[in-house]
């Protein structure tokens, strides 16, 4: 007779003593070791959202385009017209990537794509959001190279283009890097698949790759701080195989076309345990699962190991009874491993058998989110560093000089800004990703603030972006997160789209740290307010806590916003680049001189603590409405928002494509540096043909929006207030190679 686990066993598996008691009361007995292991992963933060769900529920989830709201399916589902739906989601793979960057990042890409195609949507585009430590350290170089290669090798072979993303380097990510991957897919409305297990007696199949010991307790691993001995957790990192992923994608699409699927879910965190219990819980059914039927890749695996294995590229599907042979023919066509491993029952329990013996017997709803998983209200208090932010004094920061040469000259500082890793081109990264497979990427020849992707067979396109300036969030979690939402929406609007829906990836430190929880709670507040304003419901996403090293240093709070938008006509696509000499340059939005939390302040002047940049949500909204209208009037030649590096960087970036310069004049109220490099929000640079000046100014004049003609596209140099800053080509040289110089 196996000895029953004790509260100490539970604690060693990461459960709290009160959770052990709760488990005993759910089961009406003490769980055996397998059952306890199941609870430990399903009740981990990663699967249960126990420390975040209270606040996540406050986010707006309803909207006129929503086909599936947050929590209803594996990913959000939005109506994009013409009988099509867009499924999209972002997810983190931070902890595995910090230990084994190549496989950690690769399997992150695999996992998020499975979430999309398990719904019956064929992925058409991928994005990612990456955070690394100081670019000059060997650790960062190793991690960045590994992560980028991992994402590239997986995504490239899988054959879905990577069309957008963001990369930041900041010291706070030295130990805990962030790897967030997003996938976007297209399905037919009414022909999507749910993660359900209906119909007592229906067969349950596993298909895809074999099951091994890799990744056991990965979900629990993702739910603790990374300590010195984290590398010893290496078996908790899974290994990816994009070739198999491609095969299960095609097989899944054929199963869908055959119309024989009852429900399907991919196997990610907590493997068979998670998919069987969640699907059963959703349908209020149960399952009998025969673990000895699971195709294995190694001998002598124990029942609990099979249950909790996180081997990649596996799917669980409930088929219509009697249609098994059709499915098996598809599996054989694609040379996949498969087996019927169980049946749907009416017991409401998931029962796992090994060679006829019952190994675990648990009510499905006790394991699934929304059931009787624990829900905690955590305490928060203002973090101590806020005091330092309040004591920021701009008068202590010297301004730049309006000259061409000298360490503190406008031109020299501009060159330095151009080379900052958070501003310079991420070409070294994205050229390692196949961005053009699938022949949908409209942004290759016409770069824009968001990636524009064609919806084939229609005259519409999608606009896709991921955004989060976590320095702003660190400075003010509520305002910073609202800015992240606003910037994502602004990028979509500037590219010609209408913001439609949001997926989020919430990367924070340890939720038991009251300061971290303050950041989390207030970030959600900011997201709620901004998403409500822009009518972009949050369709789902992922929470990643414990991005904190054992010495107590948490990452900047990083609530990454993945947003999709719709171009009701593909021809609305608006590039960011200057197109014609002589076009008029307008600055739309309020010209505020604000250096707070700018790259200039933190990286050039080394000021770590300052408030979030100037931001007014209503003005932002008005700005976006104005840009939308102007684009739909057909008179906007280019549009680019002011982001990191402010006005100067935006001007320069607009010139790169055609090596066009600009001659502008701008009022300097107080400071030259704030005028050029400040990151006050809600500002966009657009260009129009001079013939449209009157139409444009009349249109803007009828709106409540600040706008000013600051100059023209002229020559191949940048001239600001009569000071010659130099050739666009020279800045492009710096901009293009700064990161490669560091990482190669």
């Amino acid at each position, binding site marked *: 007779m196996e000895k029953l686990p004790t509260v100490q066993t539970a604690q060693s598996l990461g459960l709290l003593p009160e959770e052990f008691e709760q488990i005993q009361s759910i089961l009406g007995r003490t769980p055996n070791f397998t059952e306890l292991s199941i609870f430990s992963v399903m009740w981990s933060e990663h699967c249960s959202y126990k420390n975040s769900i209270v606040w996540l529920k406050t986010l707006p989830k309803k909207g006129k385009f929503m086909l599936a709201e947050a929590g209803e399916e594996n990913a959000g589902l939005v109506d994009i017209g013409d009988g099509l739906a867009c499924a999209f989601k972002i997810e983190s793979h931070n902890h595995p990537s910090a230990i084994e960057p190549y496989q950690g990042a690769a399997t992150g890409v695999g996992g998020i794509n499975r979430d999309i195609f398990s719904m019956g949507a064929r992925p058409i585009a991928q994005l990612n959001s990456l955070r690394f430590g100081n670019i000059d350290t060997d650790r960062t170089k190793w991690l960045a190279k590994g992560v980028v*290669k991992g994402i*590239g*090798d997986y995504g*490239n*072979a*899988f*054959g879905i283009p990577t069309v957008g993303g963001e990369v930041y380097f900041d010291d706070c990510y030295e130990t805990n890097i962030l790897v967030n991957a997003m996938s976007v897919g297209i399905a037919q409305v009414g022909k999507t698949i749910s993660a359900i297990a209906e119909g007592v007696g229906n067969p349950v199949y596993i298909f895809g790759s074999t099951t091994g010991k890799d990744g056991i307790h990965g979900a629990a691993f993702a739910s603790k701080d990374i300590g010195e001995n984290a590398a010893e957790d290496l078996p908790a990192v899974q290994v990816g*195989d*994009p*070739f*198999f992923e*491609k*095969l299960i994608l095609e097989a899944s699409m054929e199963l869908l076309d055959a119309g024989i699927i009852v429900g399907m879910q991919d196997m990610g965190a907590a493997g068979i345990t998670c998919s069987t219990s969640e699907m059963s819980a959703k349908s209020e059914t149960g399952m009998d699962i025969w673990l000895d039927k699971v195709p294995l890749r190694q001998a002598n695996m124990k029942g609990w190991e099979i249950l909790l294995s996180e081997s990649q590229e596996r799917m669980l599907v409930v088929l219509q009874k009697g249609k098994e042979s059709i499915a098996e023919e598809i599996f054989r066509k*694609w*040379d996949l491993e498969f087996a019927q491993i169980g049946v749907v029952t009416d017991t409401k329990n998931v029962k796992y058998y090994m060679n006829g013996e019952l190994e675990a017997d648990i009510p499905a709803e006790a394991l699934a989110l929304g059931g009787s998983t624990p829900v905690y209200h955590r305490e928060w208090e203002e973090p101590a560093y806020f005091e330092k932010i309040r004591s920021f004094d701009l008068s202590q920061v010297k301004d730049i000089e309006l000259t061409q040469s000298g360490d503190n000259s406008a031109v020299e500082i501009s060159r330095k800004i151009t080379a900052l890793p958070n501003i310079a081109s991420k070409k070294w990264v994205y*050229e*390692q*990703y*196949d*961005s*053009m*497979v*699938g*022949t949908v*990427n*409209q942004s*290759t*020849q*016409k770069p824009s603030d968001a990636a524009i992707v*064609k919806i*084939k067979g229609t005259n519409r396109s999608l606009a896709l972006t991921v955004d989060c300036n976590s320095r702003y969030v660190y400075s003010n979690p509520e305002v910073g997160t609202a800015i992240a939402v606003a910037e994502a929406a602004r990028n979509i609007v500037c590219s010609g789209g209408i913001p439609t829906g949001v997926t989020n990836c919430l990367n924070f430190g340890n939720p038991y740290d009251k300061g971290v929880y303050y950041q989390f709670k207030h970030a959600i507040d900011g997201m709620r307010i901004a998403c409500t304003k822009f009518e972009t419901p949050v369709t789902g996403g992922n929470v990643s806590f414990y991005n904190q090293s054992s010495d107590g240093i948490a990452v900047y709070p990083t609530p990454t916003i993945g947003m999709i938008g719709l171009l009701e006509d*593909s021809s609305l696509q608006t590039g960011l680049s200057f197109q014609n000499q002589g076009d008029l340059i307008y600055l739309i939005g309020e010209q505020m001189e604000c250096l707070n939390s700018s790259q200039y302040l933190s990286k050039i002047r080394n000021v770590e603590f300052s408030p979030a940049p100037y931001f007014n949500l209503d003005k932002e909204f008005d700005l976006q409405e104005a840009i939308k209208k102007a684009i739909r009037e057909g008179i906007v030649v280019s549009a680019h928002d002011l982001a990191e590096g402010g006005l100067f960087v935006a001007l320069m970036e607009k010139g790169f494509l055609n090596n066009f310069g600009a001659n502008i004049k701008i009022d300097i109220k107080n400071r030259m540096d704030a005028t050029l490099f400040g990151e006050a929000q809600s500002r966009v640079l657009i260009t129009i043909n001079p013939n449209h000046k009157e139409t444009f100014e009349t249109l803007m004049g009828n709106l409540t929006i600040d706008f000013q003609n600051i100059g023209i596209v002229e020559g191949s140099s940048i001239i600001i207030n009569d000071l010659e800053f130099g050739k666009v080509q020279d800045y492009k040289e710096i901009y293009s190679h700064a990161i490669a110089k560091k990482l190669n």
Partner: protein
Amino acid sequence: MKIGVVIFPGSNCDRDLIETLGDLTGTQVIELWHKDTDLKECTHIFLPGGFSYGDYLRSGAIAKLSPIMQSVIEHANKGGFVMGICNGFQILCESGLLPGALLHNNNLKFICKDVFLKPQNNSQLATKNLDSTKAYKIPIAHGEGRYYADDKTLSDLESNNQILFKYCSQEGNITEESNPNGALNNIAGICNKQGNVIGMMPHPERCATEHLLNIDGKAILQSIFA
């Protein structure tokens, strides 16, 4: 004329190619499955890009052993048209239908970007309708695209007009800087001596539709069917 596109497990440019060729020729493009040997009377066979069988050994090394390739080789040897793009080019070299090999890029990284190609003659199927003074903007996306062959093979290729495209600058100059992967003699695409088997690393099918705002690839594909 009947066009067939071979689908290997791990092919990922097959759908792009089927769509593009279908639009271009107004014909129904036939899907040819790797496990079959029947070419379904196709006259023009295309091998698409991707990672056939995962390409874990060496790109194209497993694909050449597939049942369909035995029929494709037979078709080529009888003078039938075969074109391989990217992974398809790698498979043709592995199969011995084209000389040389494709090695890891000299920077050891996967590279995806637009490059420029200069047609090297107007005497071959893929180049006969092209402007040999123009630089065509066509994207690459590969990790193993560095064309390599011994000196004898290279000089044969040059003297037989078998080199179709060389990497060049935007202005059309064949320079070291414009060579993205270290290919010998900047070679981007070749054909066999008879001219019926064509291989190229860049992807003309990725720049042949209006919505992508670059249709330089269309000219190359059109040249084949003209």
